[in-house]
């Protein structure tokens, strides 16, 4: 059972995997040799004694919450967000008895600024770089964040199809999105450009893993930014050595985590990933809920996840 296909959730080697239909093209590439069982959102299916269904999580394309109905109803949110995203179906609150929620950003300092204002800031910075004859290099997670950014940029600037270029890893995912019927602007590939092209005024969208690699040398005079929820904290931006940080996350911020727990009506909550301990304790003390940390196979790697170039899968 798979909520979505980020590397920290989907590992190759499983025999059969149930997932949402929109995730199929990506699953074919990421989980070769695995038998895929595809479902629509809200369509119940049975495994043994339990009834299951998938519901939109609003995280990335094809991301799903898992609802399990047996003696009691469980909901596993997987990674989710409640902000609008033109590239995936919006999160759907579900009532349940037990909620297993992610807590990547489970601290009250993580509260997202207005999405539109933040994107406007990014576009203004791009214009500023353009005016100064510089290139603009934006690091964003290749699956989800990059597509969301492209769709949002296209709404704000008519230069996107002419002046935005992407790294190959981003382009491959964009094709998957288009296959699944998500409209995205047509952007060109960095690697298709002839050598000694001037990159001044252009915006390059690349995964964070290329940061500090020889790949970025070709862009000449440029400024860099990282687009991630972690950019809410200045030290995190300085630590990554980028010029700017834009706070745009595919995860729920603290108020959204609390709201989701309350919307679910669950009396028992299990938190996982990130600051799970803080969220669980707060739910116990401030809301008298039966809340705890759900240990996962990835527990204890929060630090690595936060400092690695992957950003916030």
């Amino acid at each position, binding site marked *: 059972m798979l909520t979505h296909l980020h590397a920290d959730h989907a590992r190759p080697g499983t025999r059969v995997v149930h997932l949402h239909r929109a995730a199929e093209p990506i699953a074919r590439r990421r989980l070769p040799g695995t038998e895929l069982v595809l479902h629509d959102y809200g369509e119940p299916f049975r495994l043994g004694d339990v009834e299951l269904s998938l519901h939109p999580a609003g995280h990335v394309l094809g991301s799903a919450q898992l609802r399990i109905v047996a003696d009691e109803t469980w909901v596993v949110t997987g990674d989710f967000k409640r902000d609008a995203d033109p590239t995936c179906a919006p999160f759907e609150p579900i009532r349940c008895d037990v909620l297993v929620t992610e807590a990547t950003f489970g*601290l009250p300092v993580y509260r997202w600024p207005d999405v539109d204002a933040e994107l406007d800031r990014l576009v203004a910075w791009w214009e500023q770089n353009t005016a100064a004859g510089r290139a603009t290099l934006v690091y964003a997670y290749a699956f989800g964040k990059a597509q969301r950014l492209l769709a949002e940029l296209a709404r704000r600037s008519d230069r996107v199809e002419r002046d935005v270029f992407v790294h190959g890893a981003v382009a491959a995912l964009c094709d998957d999105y288009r296959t699944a019927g998500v409209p995205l602007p047509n952007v060109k590939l960095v690697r298709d450009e002839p050598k000694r092209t001037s990159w001044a005024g252009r915006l390059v969208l690349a995964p964070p893993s290329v940061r500090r690699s020889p790949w970025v040398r070709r862009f000449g005079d440029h400024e860099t930014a990282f687009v991630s929820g972690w950019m809410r904290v200045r030290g995190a931006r300085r630590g990554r050595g980028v010029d700017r940080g834009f706070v745009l996350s595919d995860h729920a911020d603290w108020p959204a985590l609390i709201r989701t727990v309350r919307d679910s009506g669950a009396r028992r909550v299990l938190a996982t990933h990130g600051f799970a301990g803080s969220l669980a*304790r707060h739910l116990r003390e401030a809301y008298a809920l039966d809340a705890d940390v759900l240990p996962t196979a990835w527990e*204890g790697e929060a630090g690595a996840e936060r*400092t690695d170039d992957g950003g916030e899968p």
Partner: protein
Amino acid sequence: MTSTSSTPGLRGLTGLAALHERLEVTSGTTAKTEAVARALREATASDAAWTLFFLSGGRLKRVIGPARLAEHARAALAIEPWLFDECAAAVGDLSETIALLFEHGAGGGELVDGSRAEDGDRDGDGDRDGDEDRHEVRDRDHFESLASWVEALRVLPMLDEETRAARVVVWWRALPFVERLVLTKLLTGELRSGVSRTLVVRAVELVSGVAREVIEHRLTGTFEPSEASWRALVDPSTDALADASRPYPFALASPLDLVPAELGPIDAWIAENKWDGIRAQVVRRSGTTWIWSRGEELVTDRFPDLVRELVALPDGTVLDAELLAWLDGSDAPLPFAELLKRIGRTKLGPKILREVPARLVAYDLLEAQGEDLRESPLVERRARLAELVQTLGSSRVALSPRVEVEASDGVDGWSMLAAHRESSRARGVEGLMLKRADSPYRGGRKRGDWWKWKVDPFTIDAVLIYAQAGHGKRAGLFTDYTFAVWHEGALVSVAKAYTGLDDAEIRELDAWIRRHTVERFGPVRSVEPVHVFELAFEDVRASTRHKSGVAVRFPRIVRWRRDKPAAEADTLAVLQKLARA
């Protein structure tokens, strides 16, 4: 000079915050210098003075302690103390934590759990209250300038706790994010601009056209920010020596990071002891004596016994020297910690003066008979200094002797000097200073003329037992470590260290700490005592204030001893022995 530019800059706190933000996203010295210059040019004279003060590391005497400030924030936000602490640990900066927690979300609402638009708060009360508060701050004239902000902050300690908290909370609620952040940093005294003093001086030069050496000199000593002091600073006609008390910018030595032989023939160098005291300049002008510490603080009143002797210096004399605690008849100074007793006390009783007698060991003469000698070669300055000290004839004022060795039996001079340096600790000094004999006296750290050649530090192998999240660049990573050594079968903590590991090691250790946490105490975690690190430190002394009974000075990590099991780490006895040595 303050311009009459048609686009006036942002005023007061808004201007300071805007500059802070600009520097945060500007890289490169030239761009940063220009940003500072622009801000100074566009500011009023008074704002420029205060901006300069804060940029060059000036701080208000702590207005509200960080613990109290955190308390005010927690109470206003109704947040659990542990949750606040976890936030502070993740952010790595108290002011930024507060600034973030008071940030209204996209839909307003400032309760810690305050939700977004869907909760109906987007146009609700949360925001409107904020606007009213903002109005209150904006409307008061005296908040237009940094000077009036400083005044408002300085009043705070005199208010009763409740009023004080209420006032600060109003600001937190009303100000936009960056201003809230900068104001909080002013309150805690931790506003750091990240720009060097040299850069700031260069910016003032750009703005005023006054040569940077002159600005440097005018800024040395006391710079009290005000409209008048800014105008005096940037006035091309002011006599730079108008303020008689002013010391010269201190010359600073670089650590010797090359083989001494690379310095060339030893005859071209003057070697002296590296004293472990307080670096100071004695200024004797206009019939008055001032003693300045290297931090450019006046410490004259800490050394009445010395001043008594120094009044005999001729007018127009400036000495560069070391303040030491030194018992008469002894051939080595007392430890540095003894000297600090002079500085720490509010009242210097006769007992301290008797038990910790001060001595001035002079090594340079910067001004004689009112003449600036800094351009003449060191040998000449030293010769005149020797004469001066001899004429003074005080047992409290000595010449820092030249350390001289002779090459013999095929052993060259540098090797003889290196051997002499080995005995530094026994002689109560930190090592040697090497100064080029024909060098002028240059303020600041100009590489090449002055080297400090310290004795190698002590090292021990210790076990990592606690970790805490770091600050700034390392925010959110566990980078503040506590180390322990063995004593009677248990580990006792002896040192905290923050530096010495590379980024990859820090990340690896961070991940390990998360997986091997034994217990949490707020932001601090105890970890399984497994990893051994080699620590270096400058000194170790017996201490009653530490549970271990010893205190180490300047501990830092040399390397990760992956080869060593915890059981083979050093024992407390090793440190105790070093402390007695």
